[in-house]
């Protein structure tokens, strides 16, 4: 079956698309009520977030747009210290898209949502004539998480002396997508995945985690710059500590890309009180997605520059956020 403009009409075809694909995969008591708005139990403090997902190709080594759409939003809730609970999802589909492709995305979303322990409780579908550059499917997800009243995880809470822990290797998602687009054959896989396990363990142990961010677009350089700006402190990291898989490193070298400004979809960086840092590191390393976690540096009082990298050969340089589109350079 191909998606047609009629599937976005709001009439019978829309109803069929919803029941055949979305309701079938996202099935739960709240969604099944098929009301105009989902009624859900709440909490005293809520965390809310939304994100839109455009990725070409729609399916790539390590994941697809559906998995990305759930993990991205769930991870954003986790980074605030919230317990993710509900998602909504909006699909914008190009007329002519194969329904099987939509179904695969929906199935991946359902699987990731189940793993994350969240329910998809509301949704929307629109059909447009042209979403060709986006590969035919755009997904928006919004997420709600419950936030304990005592949890205050924010970059403005970072303190001098905090250790910076990175949960794993840099650049994998970005390099996997670029490889697919450039039709370069290699073994690089996207790291798209949920950060539920390490985050819930850190919070459960009540460790002094001051700030967390998932390392997505803009990369570690952009996040550390934001940490520095919001806290008024300096982030000092060591190049020799930064984990980058050899194949990703070589790929970046050829194209003139810097793993520091490349996106991941299943890694996070945390600023943790020095007294708890070793414990936190051990706990993260015991999780499936955090085996390569390392302490990459420390927070200091504000120095001349916001983010400093100690290079492998013993030099120092400033790290600046990504500017522009992060295009491969000319030669």
């Amino acid at each position: 079956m191909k998606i047609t403009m009629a599937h976005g009409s709001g009439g019978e075809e829309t109803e069929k698309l919803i029941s055949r694909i979305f309701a079938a995969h996202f099935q739960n008591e709240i969604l099944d009520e098929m009301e105009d708005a989902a009624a859900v139990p709440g909490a005293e403090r809520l965390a809310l977030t939304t994100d839109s997902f455009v990725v070409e190709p729609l399916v790539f080594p390590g994941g697809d747009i559906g998995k990305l759409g759930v993990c991205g939003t769930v991870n954003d809730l986790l980074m605030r210290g919230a317990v993710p609970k509900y998602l909504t999802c909006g699909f914008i589909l190009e007329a002519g898209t194969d329904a099987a492709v939509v179904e695969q995305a929906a199935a991946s979303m359902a699987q990731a949502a189940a793993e994350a322990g969240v329910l998809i409780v509301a949704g929307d579908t629109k059909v447009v004539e042209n979403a060709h550059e986006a590969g035919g499917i755009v997904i928006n997800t919004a997420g709600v998480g419950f936030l304990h009243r005592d949890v205050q995880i924010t970059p403005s809470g970072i303190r001098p002396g905090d250790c910076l822990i990175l949960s794993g290797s840099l650049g994998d998602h970005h390099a996997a997508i670029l490889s697919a687009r450039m039709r370069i054959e290699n073994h690089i896989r996207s790291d798209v995945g949920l950060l539920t396990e390490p985050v819930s363990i850190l919070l459960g142990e009540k460790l002094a985690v001051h700030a967390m961010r998932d390392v997505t677009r803009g990369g570690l350089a952009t996040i550390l710059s934001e940490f520095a700006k919001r806290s008024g402190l300096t982030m000092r990291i060591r190049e020799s500590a930064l984990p980058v898989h050899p194949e990703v490193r070589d790929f970046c070298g050829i194209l003139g890309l810097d793993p520091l400004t490349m996106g991941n979809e299943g890694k996070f960086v945390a600023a943790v009180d020095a007294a708890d840092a070793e414990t936190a590191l051990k706990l993260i390393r015991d999780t499936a997605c955090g085996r390569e976690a390392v302490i990459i540096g420390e927070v200091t009082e504000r120095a001349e520059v916001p983010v400093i990298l100690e290079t492998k050969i013993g030099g120092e340089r400033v790290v600046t956020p990504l500017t522009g589109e992060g295009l491969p350079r000319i030669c």
Partner: protein
Amino acid sequence: MSGIEEIVGYLRDYDGPSIRLMEVCGTHTAEITRNGIPSMLSDRIRLISGPGCPVCVTVTAVIDRLITLAREENTTVLTFGDLMRVPGSGGSLASAKAEGASVDFVYAPADVLDLAEKAPEKQFVFAAVGFETTAPVYAMLLADAVARGIHNVRLVTSLKTMPEAIRYVAKNAVEPIDGFLAPGHVCAVTGCADYARLADELRIPFVVSGFGGEELLCAIYALVRMRGQALMRNLYPAVVRTDGNRRAQEAVARFFEPGDASWRGMGTIPGSGLYLREEYESFDAGGRELVEDRIPVGCRCGEVLTGSIPPSACPMFGTACTPDHPHGACMVSAEGSCCSWYTGSRRED
């Protein structure tokens, strides 16, 4: 002395006469910054980023021509990424694209021919910008186009050659330059004999260097030790041979011939350009005539590229001109003198 620790110590503690060394390869510029090398050197050793970044030396007429072509019906301009943001006399290719001009970037030149073959009713113009390193790539693209009978691809060329530019910079520098890091990738193609001749002519040392942090430190150390000697040393022998890569040279010679070239902010340097030969003029969408260089008022990129001023001496540096909003071409690419200085803590004068 040979151990890297000793070299690091020597360069850190050097208290001899002040010495100014120039690198003329964009990748050297980027790697010197990325490795934090300026922070490891004595105040008396100054590294200057010369005209080694291809987009930095591309005159506005080239950008303007590409924009004009991109606005023509049925024509798409294809370019590598960096060139998109280089300001022409009006806007950049990126701003023209935002206004509806047909501009796309490609990752590999082979993609250009595939696109052209799939859409024979359309015209494609490829921005062939670069030095001796990328010229063979364009030559191979043309050879492939001839072999496949593809006629809807043309090049706007802005191809330059390094030795003439180095001679120009060395002879016109406000303060003398005491040595050059010869461009490693360029030498891989052309060989390093040209640089031995330049060392002899200009009476200063040249060292051919690789791109690793330690390789660069060794090359800088060698230049400091060779101060005042009219010698060339090849410290990148695994890749660079005296006579270079013959096949690449032959491919370039088949399609291109030398000519005078206009360098952004620096003026015309005799014999420093490569242009399509007459027999391949059907592939030519502009080259020799693209000499006009209407750089934005206030931009001092030319003086930066020749080492006359450090980037920070330009009144626009870091204020009106930043990597977000480049005013001059040197602020566009990570290989650009100003961008590299801005993003990577190059030492202030």
